[in-house]
């Protein structure tokens, strides 16, 4: 079937893509700048078409625990929120990671800390990629840079989530969530009629009971479980790294940026090249796993790197680890809900690398 072309906000695209991906349940709580997701789903009323459940919970905490309950039944379930709401969900997220349950969590990031602002930011990078809740765990983190990717990554998220029995976070921001672009939508998929063998669906006589838990008081068994998680994360690091390169082949200076900042940097590359400065851009699409290997390779070819993020400098730490001292690495980014401009990025390239 052909894809359908629509003009949509990023938030609406996620919601429509979720219905079309055959998602079984969405559990959410309103928070700006992502409330269009639950509004769109309530309006679309997919319980009458695909049978998808849409529920407005009493809190972010309840919503993420509903995701836990649904995921443990082997269902395709998701939630969405923005930064302060994602902080509230962290307890549930670590339980989901500890119980090895698949699900999708969308974070349409706004500036913080605290209640912060409702404007776009990228200041939740550490929280998303390093765990966020307690204990040793990782989410798989996808960073869309367009409305199209917010739609496409719904399907990709569930594919990865079920493949690895691991929660996936789509780390968007208020700009991509709110802006309208054209988007090609996939045809409607049927909801799955079967459940994985580990799911709690009621114990038939033909199998042992299924127990979903993240508890083990025996330190030896708990360590074996932790080692199993480490092995899983290493496999993900090995197989699931995704990134995009823009004019890197002859680049002397490399920008590293994701999401909205990557779009700003693409323009900055064009402006810089117009002025004779050979700049390239590497856009990580997966933030965990991070494109460490590729950045390390590029460090042999360029004279310096600039991590551009709408934060005080978070991803730059992963770039520094990847570069491992081979070339100078700097950070630049606006905060508080202000989107960096391409001209600002070009000025920083000049001042840091050209000495202008």
């Amino acid at each position, binding site marked *: 079937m052909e894809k359908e072309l629509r003009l949509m906000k990023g938030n609406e695209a996620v919601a429509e893509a979720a219905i079309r991906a055959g998602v*079984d*349940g969405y*559990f959410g709580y309103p928070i700006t700048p992502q409330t269009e997701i639950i509004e769109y789903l309530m309006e679309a009323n997919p319980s009458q078409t695909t049978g998808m*459940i849409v*529920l407005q*919970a*009493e*809190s972010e*905490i*309840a*919503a993420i*625990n*509903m*995701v*836990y*309950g*649904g995921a*443990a*039944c082997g*269902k395709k*379930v998701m939630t969405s929120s923005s930064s302060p709401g994602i902080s509230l969900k962290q*307890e*549930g997220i670590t*339980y989901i990671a500890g*119980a090895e349950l698949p699900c999708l969590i969308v974070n349409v990031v706004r500036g913080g800390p605290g209640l912060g602002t409702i404007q776009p930011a990228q200041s939740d990078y550490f929280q998303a990629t390093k765990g966020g809740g307690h204990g040793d765990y990782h989410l798989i983190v996808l960073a869309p840079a367009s409305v199209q990717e917010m739609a496409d990554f719904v399907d990709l998220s569930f594919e990865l989530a079920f493949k690895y029995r691991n929660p996936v976070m789509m780390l968007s921001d208020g700009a991509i969530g709110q802006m309208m672009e054209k988007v090609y939508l996939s045809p409607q998929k049927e909801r799955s009629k079967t459940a994985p063998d580990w799911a*709690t*669906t*009621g*114990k*038939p*006589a033909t199998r042992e*009971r*299924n*127990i*979903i*838990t*993240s*508890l083990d008081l025996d330190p030896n068994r708990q360590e074996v479980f932790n080692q199993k998680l480490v092995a899983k994360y290493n496999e993900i690091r090995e197989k699931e790294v995704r990134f995009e390169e823009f004019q890197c082949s002859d680049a002397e200076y490399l920008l590293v940026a994701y999401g909205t900042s990557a779009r700003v940097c693409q323009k900055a590359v064009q402006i810089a090249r117009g002025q004779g400065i050979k700049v390239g851009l590497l856009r990580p699409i997966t933030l965990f796993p991070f494109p460490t290997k590729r950045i390390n390779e590029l460090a042999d070819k360029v004279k310096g790197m600039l991590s551009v993020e709408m934060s005080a400098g978070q991803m730059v730490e992963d770039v520094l680890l990847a570069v491992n001292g081979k070339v100078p690495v700097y950070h630049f980014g606006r905060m508080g809900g202000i989107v960096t401009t391409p001209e600002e990025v070009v000025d920083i390239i000049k001042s840091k690398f050209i000495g202008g």
Partner: protein
Amino acid sequence: MTENTLSYCPGCGHGTAHRIIAEIISEEGLQSEAIGVSPVGCSVFMYNYLDIDWQEAAHGRAPAVATAIKRLLPEKFVFTYQGDGDLAAIGTAETIHACNRGENILIIFINNGIYGMTGGQMAPTTLPGMKSSTSPYGRDVKTMGFPLKITDIVATLPGSYYVTRQSVHTAANVKKTKKAIRKAVQYQKLNKGTCLVEIVSNCPSGWKMTPVQSNKWMEENMFPYYPLGDLKTPEELPTK
């Protein structure tokens, strides 16, 4: 019930409550239909004792977890088993809102007026003047608040369908509780709202009493504050 050894202290009501639930699941032929949600607290390992599918919820979140299970698998029998700290303190919001939405789940609420698993701290249900490790001079309601009758609150919500308070400390009470839980299980099939069965129970270790003393103390002190009986009853079940 499985062959696993119960982790409860001698004389504790949890084992009896487990047994009643297991018997009803067996007698009603619900083993393949039942999905249980266990809490954080003394009954955190309940999934080791009943031979059905289980989910272990975060502290207080069982009603939210059960909400999603029942919404996604509406033909199944979904129940939570929660203590007073889990249900009436950290999980108050989840309890009230699941019941207010009228989720078609059964909540079994064990109220022993104390945090048993962490070693006898004050619970929201601890009686005025009652001693615990965090109210060593007795619960002073002026600074520590009053014991919360959450079951009474749930009974006032339009979403709740059958709400009752029972105990399991005598053979006669075990019979009554079993009857109440069986009713709740049958009501559940009607999909008319949340059923909540509170079981006022003892905690010999936490209360620092023998099992016999603790039962007597419960009758003399807990029951006057938490009187046994139905708080909300629907119309009679349709005859078969």
